[in-house]
């Protein structure tokens, strides 16, 4: 009962039907389920998949695993600003292409990919289109009844729900091979007793985010403009943005003439929580694969800061952060 309510609420926030909402354990599972499930369901028609080099590790690794079981994956390069050339996507499509997947908003740079145009390309050729929308939901207006998207991954904790809950939107009529067998839950597409508390939480969180989208957007825009202005005046700082569209809650910049690791340690010691990659790559300490894919060398990638803004972030915090960052850069800058 409650589960159905949660499902209906999420569906209405996304412009979807309740039957198109599958509960999962999070964004990573949603991506795994979508990519493997769609690829396997399309195996009779071909084995070719198109994606790009700056996807989240849960997409990159799922595609690698598919490659090992006989699929061919075209990983399209992006230019150094993270932009995609639509004609290249078109050129990459083969008669055997059975899946196209592009993230909506890049989690490290904030760049918004043209999912509508990409989905259109796929739809006119009868190819399922999946998008990892973990960083888009709650930040951009989404109406799936108007968009050519067949599958969409969503994470609960990015919306303010606890970790351990996610959603995969699957358009009615889209074939998906089951990945978790042994139960008739979720239209027999994902066996296992549902996480009811998680489902209620993500439904509520999404409702709040979607209903307040305008005021939240205004908040993020105001803060990111302040941040961009501050960063613009700072020595050695290069903002990793172009004229393209960016989600206002993520700002990425590179700092030259400093040791990236030292800068992050100094920021952390000053109680500033920023990151230089996706949390999913922590422990590896390797430079961000996203920034590397954009052509950054190791030193620049390691000296790149991803600044994520939250609903509770205040202009005062931006001022304080900017002050500390500038102090740190000045104290550790080295001769070029």
């Amino acid at each position, binding site marked *: 009962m409650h589960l159905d309510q949660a499902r209906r609420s999420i569906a209405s926030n996304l412009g979807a039907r309740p039957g198109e909402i599958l509960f999962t354990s999070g964004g990573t599972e949603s991506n795994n389920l979508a990519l493997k499930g769609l690829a396997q369901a399309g195996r009779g028609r071909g084995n070719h998949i198109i994606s790009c080099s700056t996807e989240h590790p849960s997409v990159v690794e799922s595609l690698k695993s598919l490659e090992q079981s006989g699929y061919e994956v075209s990983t399209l390069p992006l230019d150094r600003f993270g932009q995609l050339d639509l004609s290249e996507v078109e050129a990459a499509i083969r008669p055997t292409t059975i899946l196209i997947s592009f993230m909506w908003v890049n989690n490290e740079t904030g760049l918004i990919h043209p999912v509508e145009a990409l989905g259109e390309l796929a739809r006119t050729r009868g190819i399922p289109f999946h998008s990892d929308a973990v960083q888009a939901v709650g930040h951009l207006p989404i109406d799936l009844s108007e968009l050519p998207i067949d599958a969409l991954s969503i994470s609960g904790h990015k919306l303010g729900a606890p970790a351990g809950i996610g959603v995969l939107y699957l358009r009615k009529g889209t074939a998906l091979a089951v990945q978790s067998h042994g139960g008739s839950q979720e239209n027999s597409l994902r066996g296992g007793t549902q996480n009811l508390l998680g489902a209620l939480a993500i439904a509520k969180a999404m409702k709040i985010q979607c209903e307040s989208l305008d005021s939240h957007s205004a908040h993020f825009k105001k803060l990111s403009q302040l941040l961009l202005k501050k960063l613009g005046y700072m020595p050695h700082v290069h903002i990793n943005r172009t004229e393209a569209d960016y989600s206002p809650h993520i700002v990425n910049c590179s700092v030259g003439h*400093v*040791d990236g*690791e*030292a*800068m992050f*340690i*100094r920021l*952390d*010691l000053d109680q500033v929580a920023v990151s230089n990659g996706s949390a999913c790559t922590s*422990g590896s*300490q*390797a430079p961000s694969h996203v920034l590397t894919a954009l052509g950054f060398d*190791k030193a620049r990638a*390691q000296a790149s800061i991803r600044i994520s803004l939250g609903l509770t972030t205040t202009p005062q915090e931006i001022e304080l952060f900017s002050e500390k960052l500038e102090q740190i850069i000045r*104290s*550790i800058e080295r001769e070029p």
Partner: protein
Amino acid sequence: MAPKNKKVVIAMSGGVDSSLAARLLVEQGYDVMGVTLKLWGYIDTGGKPGHESNCCSLDDINNAKAECAALGIPHYTLDMSAEFKEIVMANFVSEYKAGRTPNPCVLCNTEIKWHQLLDKLDDLGVDYLATGHYARKVKHSETGKWVIERGHDLHKDQSYVLWGIRPEDLERTLFPLGELSKQEVRQLAAAANMATAETPESMEICFVPDNDYRRFLNEQHPEIAASAPPGNFVDKDGTVIGEHQGIYNYTVGQRKGLGLATGERVFVNKIDAETNTIHVGSKQDAESKTFLVNGCNWLIPESHVLGVDVTVQIRYNHRAKPAKIRHEQDQDYRVTFENPENAITPGQSAVFFLGDQVVGGGIIKSM
């Protein structure tokens, strides 16, 4: 006595020694930060994911992190794998290729753990670098220079692998375990309920966890086998007595795995890369009183060492023997033992002691 405002970074491997060292520094009142170096990836060295490794794994990093969290001090992981690859791994490969037997731990300490790390730590306003080595830092009475004294626990003493630390780097070094025995370290760790109290000893080269350096070279550097063709084993008289499998497969003093049926026990006496020849002979044939070193590091002015009665240690497990050192030419110095020593191995470190104090060292070049 330790001033509260002195900032110390403790290099932590995730094992009991460095973890206890961190705790001791905190107890002594220093402002401590833990750092774990990521020097190589297990997968990069031919291991399979999910298998156990002894160093640089996520487990080790998490152990160190957990100990720091328990102490309420920050912990960071620094990726120095590029530097490690460029300096330590490259040297390891080129030394074997040249028929020499490198000690990568010495080079790693000198260049990575001390020199490059201290350079990085400058950005963090750090006063001292501490490690969990069993060694002591003391002032040489005559010159007032900092030197390294053997650890109180002679069974665990690690001063041999520290000779290369530059004097200016040693100045900024602390060895909190120098006065302790391994047993005391384990007892103190257990008494403090430290999760790492029972961690196993690591004795091997970190990036060759199975101790099989030939496997490592063959798998990771197949080019070495291609450039090191089979050649001749010759005896003392120069007679060819067999074929070797490429010089990198052998070390001076080696007896096993030569595949020679000579009727008597023979040892590798000398590896000649130029002629691709390996000289074998009896244990006595491998003895020598004198050898050349280069790449020397002096912790006190060399004038206080040359011509003086010193002892010299030529392997990690060697007992230092009486010798004299003199300058030969350019960067070369000649070490002459009082009595012949067995299997003096080019590529290994020769460490110069005055009593229990390391006053310098170098790399064995040739006889």
